[in-house]
């Protein structure tokens, strides 16, 4: 933990964080200026798009309930918790299934022959295509949401784990056996660390997809959750609340991704040599490459 805090500190203090590329701000700032211009002068009515100041107020009100501007005033926390729990359950289940099946099919040729064609056939059905069937099976609400998240997040985790597990260099395994590893320690000391970078890619993709399918599931009808807030707000004509919920989903998606990478970094610290350059880092924040 101390190591983690130290690293966080150096990350924040390092020059990289100070030298932000200002060019990246041009497009967002321009959009905000245009947004202000069209909304504050009444070109676009506020029931289509609220002005940025109003939106800021609504966001603060949603979080702290100071002004009672909407029916959701001060209800951020309960909706947030409901959504986070759903994502954690669905993503957790998908991680467990994806890693277990991924390692089995990546390392055992017979299981790969047995399961790979089936899993890839299922994968070809877009996750959203499962929605009607999920509603028939599980009814609208909680179970459907969980099912959709788990199903959708499973595939990137499984695919990345299975592929990287099958690609572990046989020389590593020979070296490990020669140096005294048995079947179990061979897995924990060689296969797991060798596949770890790809597993993280899978987990990060899976987590991103979890948030997407959370919203889809919640739109179908749950009482609490950010997706439910969006859908209800549409019916109640509170477009500013739809955007507010979107903002929080964006923030949460990013925060959970950062936490995931930090946890992974704690399990296998990035390769920082005596030179101390984080450029050789095993894992870095940023967009994972799709594979």
């Amino acid at each position: 933990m101390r190591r983690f805090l130290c690293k966080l500190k150096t990350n924040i203090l390092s020059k990289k964080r100070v030298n932000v590329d200002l060019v990246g701000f041009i497009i967002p700032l321009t959009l905000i200026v245009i947004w202000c211009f069209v909304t504050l002068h009444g070109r676009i009515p506020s029931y289509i798009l609220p002005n940025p100041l109003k939106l800021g107020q609504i966001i603060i009100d949603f979080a702290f309930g100071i002004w009672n501007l909407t029916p959701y005033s001060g209800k951020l926390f309960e909706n947030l918790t409901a959504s986070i729990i759903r994502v954690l359950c669905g993503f957790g289940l998908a991680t467990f299934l994806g890693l277990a099946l991924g390692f089995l099919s990546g390392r055992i040729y017979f299981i790969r022959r047995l399961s790979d064609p089936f899993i890839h056939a299922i994968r070809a059905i877009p996750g959203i295509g499962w929605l009607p069937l999920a509603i028939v099976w599980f009814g609208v609400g909680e179970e459907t949401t969980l099912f959709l998240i788990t199903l959708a997040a499973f595939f990137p985790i499984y695919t990345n784990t299975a592929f990287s597990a099958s690609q572990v260099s046989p020389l590593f395994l020979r070296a490990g056996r020669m140096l005294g590893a048995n079947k179990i320690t061979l897995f924990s000391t060689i296969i797991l660390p060798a596949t770890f970078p790809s597993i993280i890619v899978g987990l990060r993709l899976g987590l991103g997809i979890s948030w997407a399918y959370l919203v889809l599931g919640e739109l179908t009808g749950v009482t609490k959750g950010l997706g439910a807030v969006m859908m209800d707000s549409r019916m109640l004509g509170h477009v500013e609340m739809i955007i507010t919920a979107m903002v929080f989903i964006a923030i949460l998606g990013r925060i959970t991704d950062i936490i995931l990478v930090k946890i992974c970094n704690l399990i296998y610290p990035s390769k920082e040599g005596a030179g101390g350059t984080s450029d050789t880092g095993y894992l870095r924040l940023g967009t994972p490459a799709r594979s």
Partner: protein
Amino acid sequence: MNLDKELIINDLDKIFPLPEGIGSLRVLDKISLQLDRGEIIAILGPSGCGKSTLLNILAGFEKPNKGEVYFKGTPVTKPTSQIGMVFQSAVLFPWLTVKGNIAYGLRFKKYKDKEIDTICQQHIHLVGLEGFEKYYPNQLSGGMQQRTALARILALEPKVLLMDEPFASLDAQSRITMQQLLLSIWSQIQPTIIFVTHDVEEALVLADNVYIMSKLPGRITHKIKVPLGRPRPISVIGTAEFSKIKGDILTLLFS
């Protein structure tokens, strides 16, 4: 069977099935060798003559179709740290530091953390990697990677070292440095070494006996006793005796 010998290789055959499923390829043909404890032999042969296959069988990674390998009188059937292999590439674990790599095998033995530390330090010193303990393999030069690989296996105190062209990918200077390092390590702990190479000079600098293998199917065609004394400094390459025997071997290889 002669139990005084450290390693006995008895009549090994290895046949690989061809990928198309028709016929098969005989890679090793009746290979027999006997090594005394502390002996260094070099195996010379053209590429693709089955040298690596032979080492893989000796290390217990592959099974021969016929014949046996005995180490101190017991058959070798699976990998053991008593018979250590140094691969052509260092095969270091990239997620571990130099020290982590060297400690890897020690962690499976009943050592305390402190003892592991001590053994690591000894072997880091032995291969001359002081100050690089915390480096990761991708931050090291090829020569330093092979030093780490050597230290990693030596830490487990193997009795036999199998070396599969370990210095082939190094530049000429590093290769000579590594050969001298290997000789200095040998003079300290005297493991039995089987050194596979295609470099005649390397074979002559290191070995007591040089064996020449033929093209497929791999057979041992000649055994040459190297008449050079030990210690064998690098200057031995310039001597007339060295040049003569090198000439003889080259003639054998290309005749």
